């Protein structure tokens, strides 16, 4: 009996080693899978849907509609709920004329999503379920205007402030006759809404072209402010331009720009970033601000 004990211990030790090895492999596999999930689901760099992206929603044929307005929402998203009046307005306005068709996309099952929309009195008939992360929707609400090729032609993130709401309505051809209501704006967490504080458009007298800019340059004291992100700025920019990305302007303008400077905002883009920058600067007390037409 005693003679068998060492052998039994030996076998038990071997079994322990094998189990330990299996567990080690399990740990490594789990870590590897975790890393992959991180890359896909946003603990790594944020890949957010943007204009020009091709959108794929399961079983949704973009060709059926001239334009489709995709409302990416979540049932537990307070900003979606707070934006209900806007969505109601959009959906009820589209019937005449029918310039776009709204489609609501949720992570949650359609039955729950429809009940949610019904509670908010948003009459959207087409409600889909899709993994929002796979659509590169990083936060809700996100609204995307999609053409017949499935390409995103415009996108709006977060709960919209007065100005961006008016831009959305204008873009979709929905009449906008109600006065701006700033009371429902929020300074809390939003998906990526850095432009919610707009009241008036840029006056035509403050829009200049390149020739005027060159004339101003000869007088000096002019700052050509490029408000694109660093990546876009690095690809190509005016050699005289100063880069302050739009989302940093609120903090940096009062620290880095002087009110005595003539500031010309530009972004060499079509998404009105320079116009938003113009308004931010005027609101911050800068009086000598112009907007470069090519930069609107």
């Amino acid at each position, binding site marked *: 009996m005693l003679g068998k004990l060492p052998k039994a211990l030996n076998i038990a030790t071997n079994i*322990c080693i094998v*189990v*330990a090895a299996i*567990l*080690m492999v*399990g*740990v490594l596999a*789990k870590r590897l899978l*975790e890393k992959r999930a991180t890359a896909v*689901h*946003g*603990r790594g760099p*944020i890949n957010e849907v943007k204009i020009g992206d091709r959108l794929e929603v399961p079983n949704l044929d973009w060709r059926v509609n001239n334009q489709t307005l995709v409302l990416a929402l979540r049932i*537990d*998203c*307070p*900003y979606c709920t707070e934006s209900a009046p806007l969505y109601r307005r959009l959906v009820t306005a589209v019937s005449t004329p029918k310039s776009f068709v709204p489609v609501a996309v949720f992570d949650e099952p359609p039955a729950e999503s429809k009940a949610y929309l019904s509670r908010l009195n948003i009459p959207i008939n087409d409600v889909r379920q899709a993994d929002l992360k796979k659509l590169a929707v*990083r*936060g809700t609400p996100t609204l995307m205007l999609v053409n017949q090729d499935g390409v995103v032609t415009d996108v709006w993130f977060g709960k919209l402030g007065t100005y961006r709401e008016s831009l959305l309505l204008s873009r979709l051809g929905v009449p906008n006759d109600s006065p701006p209501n700033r009371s429902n704006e929020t*300074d*809390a*967490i*939003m*998906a*990526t809404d*850095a432009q919610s504080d707009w009241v008036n458009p840029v006056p035509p007298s403050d829009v200049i072209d390149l020739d005027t800019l060159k004339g101003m340059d000869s007088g000096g004291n002019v700052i050509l402010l490029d408000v694109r992100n*660093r990546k876009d700025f690095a690809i190509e920019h005016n050699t005289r331009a100063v880069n302050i990305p739009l*989302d*940093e302007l*609120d*903090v*940096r303008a*009062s*620290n*880095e720009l002087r009110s005595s400077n003539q500031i010309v905002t530009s972004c060499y883009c079509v998404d009105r970033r320079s116009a938003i920058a113009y308004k931010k600067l005027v609101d911050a007390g800068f009086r000598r601000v112009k907007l470069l037409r090519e930069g609107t």
Partner: protein
Amino acid sequence: MFLILLISIIFRPLSLPVQEYRVAEVSLRKHVKNVVMPTFPQDAEKRGAKGPVIIQVDVNAEGNVAKTETLQSPDASISEAVTRAVTQWKFEPFRIGAGTPVGVQGKLTFYCVLDAHGKGRVENPKQFR
């Protein structure tokens, strides 16, 4: 014992998700509980480095800085000093409404300035001083 250790490693809670939402610097700074200001590196002083430093931070649901990335800096040693300091910052957890805490991503701005004697210091933007 070895097996218990392994099992505890495998089944320990996964790290909380971070940077699900972007927040403005104003919101980010409103949530700061503990601030450690960077010191101006001497070698950067000698080089006369000055200007804005922009650091992107990922704050996890527990309010800790999980990741940083220098977006703009006048000098590599300043970038290191600011990163070291910011990593020690603590934030009140960010919540959406009354919901559970979420991870957020935002930017922090600092200014490196040199006085008349060439002595450097790192400052917050004036609206946060």
